[in-house]
């Protein structure tokens, strides 16, 4: 187990294709980190450089005390799990998991107790002597992870989209198991995925990447509630964040926001978080879950014209319109009574909201230092 430090790491492929642009990242011992971003953001290149599968063009990678730039993969003491589990189809579950220790010529008794311990955690006991080829996708994936974890002394566990090709139900199940097992094993882990819900669910901290650059590195709560820019804001969250073109200004000691023809008072609590002055064009960002619905107009409420509704058993989605701005809300309330209303009224500031500078897309608000502060 070790801390990992990336110092100005660069990756340039043939033909001057820059995949990673000077990445700095400090990962603590025992931490579960997720590299998150769309395809082409450089997350897999970063992982492959840490693994030693890809040459480092510039900068330095340190695992524990050791700079590993010129250390071969097999000498870096890491375990890896990839999207395709690469099990030995004709070996049974036991032999697949035991393989990394067997080739190291470790005593049979020790291997046995370690395998038994892992199959218990993964609840694979009943499948122990079944050939890998007979397992379901989810089970194969679990065997793959168990095999990666068996080298107890590994400094680092690297996973590249290990569950992204499983179907939805299995993915949710596997996600739970992964989050649990890593915490129990305590191995420093770097987990690459393009699925933001996976990152939120299992990572201690998330590094959001975009075209070879790090946009934000923080806890799931920070990333979700206080994105540093519109890119992170838009990428995180199951449903896209709503953005409202507006202007931030101060009048009679009150902070105000103009959206179209509507003039709204901002809560005073936001003042302490303002990075610099007011009177600027901003984008108000509100998640579809963070608006409160009213049937009557009232102070600080934005009217929304109902376009169409998708009503599901667990939640519903309403597509709304305010002066040519389209936005959506998601609610767990029963909306069957109000879906035919022409207009509803929304509180935008009663839960969480964000303000981004219109020109740069960067947040104009500081992240509160402790969870629950300010908002």
């Amino acid at each position: 187990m070790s801390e990992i430090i990336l110092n100005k790491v660069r990756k340039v492929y043939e033909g001057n294709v820059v995949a990673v642009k000077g990445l700095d990242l400090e990962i603590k011992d025992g931490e579960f980190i997720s590299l998150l971003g769309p395809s082409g953001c450089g997350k897999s290149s970063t992982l492959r450089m840490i693994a030693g599968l890809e040459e480092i063009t510039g900068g330095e990678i340190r695992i524990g005390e050791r700079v590993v730039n010129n250390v071969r993969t097999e000498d870096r003491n890491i375990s890896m799990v990839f999207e395709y589990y690469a099990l030995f189809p004709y070996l049974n579950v036991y032999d697949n998991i035991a393989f990394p220790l067997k080739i190291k010529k470790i005593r049979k008794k020790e291997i046995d107790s370690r395998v038994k311990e892992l199959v218990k955690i993964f609840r694979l006991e009943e499948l122990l002597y079944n050939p890998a080829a007979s397992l379901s996708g989810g089970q194969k994936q679990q065997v793959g992870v168990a095999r990666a974890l068996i080298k107890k002394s590994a400094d680092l566990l690297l996973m590249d989209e290990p569950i992204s090709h499983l179907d939805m139900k299995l993915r949710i199940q596997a996600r739970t198991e992964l989050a649990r097992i890593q915490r129990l094993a305590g191995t420093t882990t770097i987990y690459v995925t393009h699925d933001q819900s996976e990152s939120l669910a299992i990572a201690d901290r998330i590094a959001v990447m975009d075209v070879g650059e790090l946009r934000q590195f923080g806890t799931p709560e920070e990333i979700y509630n206080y994105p540093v820019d519109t890119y992170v804001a838009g990428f995180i969250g199951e449903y896209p964040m709503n953005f409202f073109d507006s202007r931030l200004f101060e009048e009679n000691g009150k902070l105000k926001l103009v959206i179209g023809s509507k003039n709204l008072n901002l809560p005073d609590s936001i003042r302490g978080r303002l990075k610099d002055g007011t009177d600027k064009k901003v984008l108000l960002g509100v998640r579809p879950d963070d608006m409160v619905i009213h049937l009557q107009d009232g102070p600080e409420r934005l009217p929304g014209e109902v376009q169409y509704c998708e009503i599901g058993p667990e939640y519903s989605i309403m597509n709304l319109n305010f002066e040519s701005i389209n936005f959506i809300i998601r609610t767990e309330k029963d909306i069957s009574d109000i879906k035919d209303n022409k207009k509803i009224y929304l509180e935008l500031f009663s839960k969480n909201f964000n303000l981004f500078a219109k020109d740069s897309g960067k947040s104009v608000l500081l992240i509160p230092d402790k969870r629950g502060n300010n908002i």
Partner: protein
Amino acid sequence: MEIISNERGTQLAVSLKVQNISKKYGKIEALKNVSFEVNPGEFFTIFGPPGAGKSTTLAVIAGITKPDDGSIFMDDLEINKLRPQDRDIAMVFESYSLYPHMTVFENLSFPLNSPFMKHEFDSKEKIKKRVNKVAELLQIDMLMSRFPRMLSGGQRQRVALGRALVRRPNLFLLDEHIAHLDAKLRYLLRGEIKKIQKDMEITMIAASPSYDEASVMSDRIAVLFEGEILQIGRPVEIYEKPYNEVIARLMGEIPINIFECDIKRIRDDEFNLVLNEQYKLKVKNILKDKIKKLSGNKVKIGMRVNDISVCDIDSCDLSSEVYAFEISGYGSIISLNFDGNIVKLRYGSNRRFKIGDKLGIKLNVNNALLFDYKSGKLL
């Protein structure tokens, strides 16, 4: 944006009736006596896990696959004997199958060049007008001169959709149309498809393994499992009253929690649901009448993630240790371990839990589903 609905003129959306369709591949029964009816202008989804027979059902309707048995009616016309091209059905597949050597415009206009469309689209101008309209609707009008390889996955999917839409077919089939797009795009496209379907008043039949998609897009869904239709109804109906345990497990983003328990009478009117010696659940109110008849029996009880809440250990229904903890944006999902049974619940606060933390839960037993222990049928 101009809507293309009224061009259908007096032509109304069609209804579809599938009657006792069976299909075998060797010894494997892909479809067993499948029957359902789709109303004109309805968004109907065939919902089921991978391998349930969803695509086979669509292929049979389209005429690509021949059923061993059964008939299909479009309005009142039996279409079994009609060739696929004579059925006037458009189908969008999971893989987009665009012509790689043709531009977006050529791909979109391809169906209009067919001899069957000659009477309506007899000039280049007419074709162009039609294609442009559809492209605008799907926001691909700026991509007309590109080739498929120059498009993103989402754009390709739109072109495939557009190619099916230009013909204004009687019936529209969507086969896991957006399953492999990333979440954001899927959401956007989902809204667009739904809107086009309503605006154009098209009868649409989709196949989807996603509960989320099926439940918010569809007017009605048919639950297909191992080649059999298990239940047909509005999504909310099926969610609240699934015929059996299998259906209950399929409905819900996070799978429903199902535990086995014994029903024991303590006093005259008091019953316990006994999970085991350690975990007992007192039953009051609504469930009691059901439970009375079942006293002394084993049942399965189903609780949705939203019907379980966290509470103080002193006043809780059950308590156990945290098995796993996951953040989900608007709150978290907590898994608890009850003697090997993993129970999941949604927790809408920022508080974090660690594996092994003691936690009490309260169950909204009024919303519980009771299933027969042997048959799995809803009681």
